[in-house]
């Protein structure tokens, strides 16, 4: 299957079928840090991904300016 990864954006081929959980383990992705999307739909960790699936592993961590509401005297 084709797997889209981000930051940096790249595509890798992974043999299927396999479960979402196994795919994340194979790619060493922490399931707390990503969503797995097939087409436009979210899939859960027990879902089975076919060999011809197009899968996006989308990171959910963002971290720029930290706390913009901390109320510090400017």
């Amino acid at each position: 299957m084709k797997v889209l990864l981000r930051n940096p954006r790249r595509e890798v081929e992974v043999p299927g079928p396999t479960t979402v959980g196994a795919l994340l383990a194979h790619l060493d992705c922490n399931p707390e840090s990503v969503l797995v999307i097939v087409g436009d739909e979210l899939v859960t960790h027990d879902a089975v991904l076919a060999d011809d699936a197009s899968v996006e592993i989308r990171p959910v961590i963002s971290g720029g300016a930290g706390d913009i509401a901390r109320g510090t005297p400017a």
Partner: protein
Amino acid sequence: MKCRVCRGPAVIDLRRHNANFCHEHFVAHCEEQVRRAVRHFAMLEPGDRVLVAVSGGKDSLALWDLLVRLGYAADGLYVGLGIDRYSDESLGHARAFATRRQLDLHVVDLATDHGFTVPEAAAATRRAPCGACGLSKRHVFNRYALDHGYDVVCTGHNLDDEAAVLLGNVLHWDLDSLARQHPALPAAPGFARKVKPLYRLGEREMAAYCVLERIDYQVDECPMAAGNRHLAYKESLNALELRSPGSKAAFLFGYLERAHGSFTRGGPTVALHPCPRCGTPTPGDECAFCRLQHRAIPVTS
């Protein structure tokens, strides 16, 4: 996996809650978490004019969407940071969302309105850009709310953001920052009320909300944030969370319930007076934003 509520097919599993949800009941879960946050800290009053700090990312757009769903009159404010294509794309996402939902989005552009960009400020101060970014956003959101009659500024800080900030504050025993870290900061002379209605929801939940509700957001990370400490704290906390689901929530909620008060009692009171240039309260001769602006704009005369 089946939805905890209706036993239909689940679209997301939340190990922290030991629960799976379908689309409909996941959205209801997010609404309920925001309701609980607002109620617990009396963040918003009926009839408040609400200003949402909008970046074009998942958290701020999900927050805006949830507040409107819950019946609040909320406008958005986007601050243009001048980070090349990233800022342009982020504004595009914010504008598209506002147009689709028929909401009012205001825009303040640092370069146009204040004469400098975040990359220029970072270069001039030789410090990490995230510092200049956070300082500029704090100033602009606060100023805009005060100048335009908004009762409260809502920011999209989620559970992961707050837990990471708490970890950083604890690692450095930054007592002033620990005292200030709270989901609801009341209004004070020169400061608008600031609240964080998403503090009970994780980053993964916010991204899932956007995917499910078809909210297009800026997925790519800010090119200037790569490698910063805040991201390292989040990765460390997620490593803990993987082994022990609920760790992040226990860390943050425990702090708020049992420890925050210890850091706010008896601290020294700093005398503040209005910045002579912009009026923002400051303990110094000039506020930090105006100092940053002076350093970022080369003196030519």
